[in-house]
Structures are given as structure tokens and as C-alpha cells.
């Protein structure tokens, strides 16, 4: 069954229509990556799925119910959202931050129960932050900080987790670390993952399905092997790319060689040379 579904949604920013009549379906327990060039609407779509942006037309359904008609706290028990470069107020420790994740489960006069506290320390352990529990979030490195935010999302005990470019601003090692963490959350707890990614190879390696966007429309959706090919990279990103299957993971890997219109120019130049 679809845990998250968009039916015929129109999305716009300040009168400008960015996405028109989009249908999207997210199946439970899988990892999805939204890919596309800048301005293709991937972050906009994620904002709509996470109820951070109202749809002009159409409806987003979470677990079968129209999301904008649901109680927002009920939504937060099913869906956790990690926005792009979230800001932590100063003076907040990892533990403080992660505890906020219990907010949707508490009534406003309730304090943290022992069960809440258990869940908090479980999430801190799961994200490898046990030795950072009392550290201020602001003093952590980018990768540790991102893990703290993921821990907060885990504490919500969601069925689905949305992440907007979780690896931006991280170095290679921390990027891998975050991707591995996200994957293990999916494998161990069956939490559905939907993320916006810039890195094609990460998306290919860690996702069950890629959703490739172009001009606010889905250009292709399917397994990495099916979707990631020369045609997609050329028509969506405008690059000529070499693609092969990486033996270790059995997933396609790409290297962008040159801009497609440059390649055409070169072709033409060669032809005229030969012709001349």
C-alpha cells in the first residue's frame, strides 16, 4: 500500500507555477531518492509532501488520509521531516534536541515519561552519539550534527522519514556515514525513506527507487538500473556521461564527461573538419 501519495498536485512559489498535475506514489518500507537539476522542483515537492507547502490543487495523502485535514501532531507521529540545514538554537545539547522529538507524543502538560527517556537514549545510541549526549549541538561537526537531527526524527517513531539534501555541506566520509545510517534505519525498522539528493551515485547505491524530475514533472521513476542511463543524464541534466555497473554493489555508477551541447558542438566541428 502507498504510505505517501500525491494526486494531481499543483505547486507554486509566489504565483509562479513550479509543479503541475503531479502524481507520485511512495510504497511502504522502501528508499526513494528525488533527483533533478536545480529548479526542477524536487525540494518543492518534498516541501509539499511534508506539509510545509500548501498545494494549489490536488491532495497529498499520508497513510490514506488527506494530509492537510489531519491533525498535525498525528501527522508527526507517522512522518518525520529533516529540513535542509536545520538550525539549532545555541545552548542546546544533543539530549535536549533529541528529546524534542517526543513532542508529538506528549500532551502539553506532560513531562518526559520513562518510556520517552528510553526511546531518546535508544536513538542517541543508534546514531552513535552516546559520547556526545551532553555536548552542545552547535559545537559538533557537520556530520555529528546531522546525526543528532536524525536521532530527533527517529524519536518521533515515524513510519516514514523525509530528508532534504541530508549530505550537503558534509565531507565524503560524513556523507557516507549519513547514507549508511539512513539505510540501516530503513533496513532495521522498515522506515520508508524519501530524500532529495544531489549526488547521483549515492542515490543509485542506496535507493530502491529513483524519481528523476525535470521541469516539475517526473521524467522517470524506477530502480537505479532501469532509470540511471545515458539518455536520462543527457535529457535531464544535459550532460554526456559514462555509466557502468559497479561490481561491488551491483548498482550503476556515473561520471559526467562533458556538457551535452559542448559535445554536439565538438561533433559538428569534427564533421566539418572531415568534410573540409
Amino acid at each position, binding site marked *: 500500500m502507498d504510505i505517501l501519495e500525491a494526486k494531481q498536485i499543483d505547486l507554486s*512559489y*509566489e504565483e509562479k507555477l513550479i509543479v503541475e498535475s503531479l502524481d507520485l506514489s511512495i510504497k511502504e518500507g522502501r528508499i526513494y531518492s528525488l533527483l533533478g537539476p536545480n529548479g526542477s522542483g524536487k525540494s518543492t515537492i518534498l*516541501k509539499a509532501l*511534508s*506539509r*510545509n507547502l500548501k498545494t494549489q490543487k490536488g491532495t497529498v495523502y499520508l497513510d490514506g488520509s488527506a494530509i492537510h485535514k489531519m491533525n*498535525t*501532531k*498525528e*501527522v*508527526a*507521529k507517522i*512522518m*518525520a*521531516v*529533516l*529540513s535542509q540545514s*536545520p*538550525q*539549532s*538554537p*545555541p*545552548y*542546546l*545539547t544533543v539530549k*535536549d534536541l533529541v528529546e*524534542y*522529538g517526543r*513532542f*508529538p507524543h506528549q500532551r*502539553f502538560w506532560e513531562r518526559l515519561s520513562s518510556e520517552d527517556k528510553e526511546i531518546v537514549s535508544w536513538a542517541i545510541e543508534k546514531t552513535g552519539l552516546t559520547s556526545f549526549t*551532553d555536548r552542545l549541538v552547535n559545537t559538533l561537526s557537520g556530520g555529528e550534527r546531522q546525526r543528532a537531527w536524525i536521532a530527533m*526524527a527517529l524519536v*518521533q517513531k515515524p513510519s516514514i522519514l523525509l530528508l532534504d539534501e541530508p549530505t550537503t555541506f558534509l565531507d565524503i566520509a560524513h556523507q557516507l556515514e549519513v547514507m549508511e545510517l539512513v539505510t540501516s534505519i530503513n533496513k532495521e525498522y522498515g522506515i520508508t525513506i524519501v530524500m532529495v539528493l544531489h549526488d547521483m551515485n549515492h542515490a543509485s547505491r542506496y535507493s530502491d527507487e529513483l524519481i528523476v524530475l525535470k521541469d516539475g514533472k517526473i521524467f522517470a521513476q524506477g530502480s537505479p538500473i532501469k532509470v540511471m542511463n545515458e539518455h536520462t543524464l543527457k535529457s535531464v541534466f544535459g550532460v554526456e556521461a559514462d555509466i557502468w555497473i559497479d561490481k561491488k554493489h551491483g548498482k550503476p555508477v556515473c561520471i559526467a564527461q562533458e556538457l551535452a551541447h559542448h559535445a554536439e558542438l565538438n561533433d559538428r566541428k569534427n564533421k566539418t573538419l572531415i568534410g573540409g
Partner: protein
Amino acid sequence: MLSNTVTEKKSFWSNLRERRTWRLFVISSFILLSILSIFFSLSKGVMDISWSTIWKTFLTSPTDAEQQVLWNIRLPRVIVGALVGINLALAGAILQGVMRNPLADPGIIGISAGAGLTGVIILVLFPQYENLVPIGAFLGAMFAAVMIYILAWKRGIQPIRIILAGVAVSAFLGSWISALMIFYSDRVHGALMFMVGGLSARSWNHVDMIIIYSLIGIALAIIGTRWMNILLLGDETARGLGLNVERTRILMTAVASLLAASAVSVVGLLGFVGLIVPHAARLLIGNDYRFLVPASCFLGIAVVTFSDTIGRLVFAPVEIPVGIIMGVVGAPFFLYLLRRET
């Protein structure tokens, strides 16, 4: 942590470094400061009253002149000052959170001016409804807040635009107050006092006028601490956690308006309290509203009652309104914060 497993006797100072102990220590200090300021204010003035007489007055009914001064003049003034201190400090603390701007103070961004305008309109045109001044002031404050939001809104809340819009709203509404005061100068007593904010001649009537609204505002501020903490994480994260961001923002702005309005109803346009107090508290204990709210309350009491007493004493028998003292201290502090933020 390793150090916790080691069984060593911790010194007072190393204990203090633990955040929980430290926060409780700071709040306790503020409580002590507020009590000292209150006693200082009660005992000092044209007539110095000993602390033992102060105790006696509370225990027995007032009889002699000293006790009359204490009971009918100083005590109501101190209570009004304390309530105003709490109200303005909390209003500032809340506005800084909901408007995402550390410079948001009910005086600076015009919420006090909105409260003042409707308050003055009632006093001047419908003096028979004087006891409705706090409600009128609340509506005026809300009106100013709505104006600020509308002017400052562009793809969400823009902190800089809040201040710019607030200054404009403040100037606009303030000029209407001045105009009313000129046209009805015969009906407005202590117009100057109202414009700078002062506690001169505040009596039990004034305590009665605002006590209910203040208590409601304080209670709502305490209830709202958790929402404020979630809101500090940013709109998107707060929404992701299941906070109704728009509703919270409107509700807490209303709470801040109620608090500011009840202060303005009795002291006029007293500025900078909502800026100085929450920031001093923030510097010491951080942004967590569960601690910031009580800390601001007690520091607010201390700052306003102490400044008012100083104002009474320095050029006695001439009184300097507390608003002038707050301005002298507050304006440089505002500039300091402005430099630190940008």
C-alpha cells in the same frame, strides 16, 4: 561520562558547571535580587523606613505616618513596578522568539504604541470606561502586531523587516498619541509621564486594574514555554514535529500583546525592559524557555523596581521617571546587540 563514575567529592564550583545546577543558581539569584530590590524600594525615599517597620506593617494594620507611607504609597507602587517588570520582560522574551528577532521589544516595534494609542483614546474620549483601558490597550497592541506582520511578511518572517516595520508602526501610532495629547491636553494628566513611562503616584487602583490581566498573561506564558522551545528550531522543523506554527505564532503574539498592554495601561510607554531583561537572562542561562520565563520574571521585577527607586532618589525631591533610566541604559544595550547580531 567518565567523571561521573569516579566517586570524588565535587566542589561547589565544579557542581555549578553542571547546567541544571547552574540554571537553578541563576534563577535563585534573580529571586534574591528581586526581593532585595523590593525591600530597597520600600525602605528608601524622602522618608527612610527601617526594615523592621516594613515587617511590622505587613504583620499589623498600618497606624503611624511611616506605615501609612509604606502601605498607601510605596507598596502599591512597588507592586505595579513588579508586575510591569514581569509583563514587559515576558512580552519581550516571547516576541523575540515568535518574531525570530533578538531586537524585538514591545516598545521598539510599536506594540506598546498600539496599546498606548487605544488606551489614551479611552482615557480622553470615554473617561467613564477607565477600567476598560487594559482591554482597549490589548486590542491596540494586537492591531500593531498585525500591522507589523503584514508589513514584514515576505516568504515567511524576515527578522530585519520586523524591526523596520516595527519602527514605522511605532512612529506612526506614537504620533497619533502625541496628537491626541495635544488636542486634549486638559484631559490628559501627566502626558509626559505617559510618553516616557513612569511609576509616579501609582496606587492600589492601578494594581487592581492590571493584576488579573497580568496573571492571565503570566500563566499563558508559562503554558507556552514548550511551544516556544519547539518554535526556536525553525518553522519547518517545528511543523515536522507537529506544532501548528501559524496558530502558535498568533497565540503567543496575543499573549505578548496582553502582557505589554497591561503594562502600558499603568505606566505608559516604558521601553527597553523587554529588551534588556530577557537578553541578560539568555546570556546566563540560554534560550530554553522553561528557564528563560521564570528568570525573566524575577529579573524584570528587580530591574524595574530598582531603577524606579534610583529614579526617586538621585535628584530627590525631583523624580526621574523610570522610563528615562531604562532609556539611558537600554539604548546603548540595543546598539550593542545590533552590532553583535550583524
